[in-house]
């Protein structure tokens, strides 16, 4: 691996280790999730009803690591911090695997 590549991967690992800042800071400022991304329950509180189509499709997929957290919504902050770092590394590995598959398909004649 080239020197530059090594250096950049190192920075990415540092980013992964620092990623829990992304949940700690919003917690400190009392900020919640993004506009327009309410769950069905939160939307019912806002509107007084759940739009029909939304209700039917909202839970179409059960993601294995929802919200980058092991242990669901009520998880302890320490669990969430560890989950976040683990999720960051899982993300890096998955990105690598998919990019490798794509590049194998694209550059199959190159060695």
């Amino acid at each position, binding site marked *: 691996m080239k020197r530059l590549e090594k250096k950049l991967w190192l920075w990415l690992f540092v980013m992964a280790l620092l990623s829990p800042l992304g949940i700690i800071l919003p917690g400190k400022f009392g900020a919640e999730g993004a506009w327009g991304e309410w769950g069905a329950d939160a939307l019912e509180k806002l509107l007084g009803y759940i739009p029909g189509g939304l209700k039917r*499709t909202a839970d179409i997929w059960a993601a294995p690591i929802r*919200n980058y957290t092991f242990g669901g919504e009520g998880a302890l902050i320490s669990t969430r911090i560890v989950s976040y770092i683990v999720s960051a590394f899982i993300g890096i590995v998955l*990105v690598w695997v998919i990019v490798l598959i794509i590049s194998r398909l694209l550059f199959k004649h190159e060695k």
Partner: protein
Amino acid sequence: MRETGVRQSVLFFLYTRGTKYMFMAQQASVVGMHIPDGYLSPQTYIPLYGASIAVWGIALKKIKNELSAKYVPYLAMAAAFSFLIQMFNIPVPGGTSGHAVGAGIIALLLGPWTAVIAVSVVLIIQAFVFGDGGITAIGANCFNMAIVMPFVAYWTFNLIKGFSQNRVRILAAAFLSGYVGLSAAAFSAAFMFGIQPVIAIGPDGMPLYAPYPLSIAIPAMAIEHLFLFSIVEGVMTLVLLKYFLKNESTLVYAMRGDSREEA
């Protein structure tokens, strides 16, 4: 039946108008600029799947023809970077939170077509594994963050920079490229949200999917992006471009035209 529908719609309209964006945002539970399942109607998300798949096809062809296998590690690093930077949620005190996407800087460093693939890979992983963005909305989210954003960012950079070699102008172009790129993605997402209550209404007159009209969706997304998240994206784009220009200037795709001229 019809009458109650109308009355409910009017009440709904008054209610949403009277509700502050901050209050609505405080109820939020998921993080990011990713449209979840259930917010877009099939007549919106199906064509956007089509559009994204078509652009992926073009992008893969371009990468195959223009790049070689030695760029693969950079494609992987770019995607990893976008995945990680999106984990750094930035809070609006007492309100919502959002994050940078990195599609702009990837477009400047590796070209907009590479950015399309790098960020799309990230968005697909986020949707399937982490429930960040819906499965039905993958086409829409990729359209906003992996297509609109890198191209708008790339065009903005070229427009501002022009043929100038002026350092300040290049850095200003980098900031604006990130700023305008993320803002465009946010507007596009807000537009998708905002047209839902017009194009997808149930037999009772109530919205079936995202319930907020353009008059609410656009300002809510615009305010937080124009005043915070897009600034962060712009600063990040500037800092990283500055780093690469200083240390690895031959790598920077957006500056290649210049080196060719010099040669």
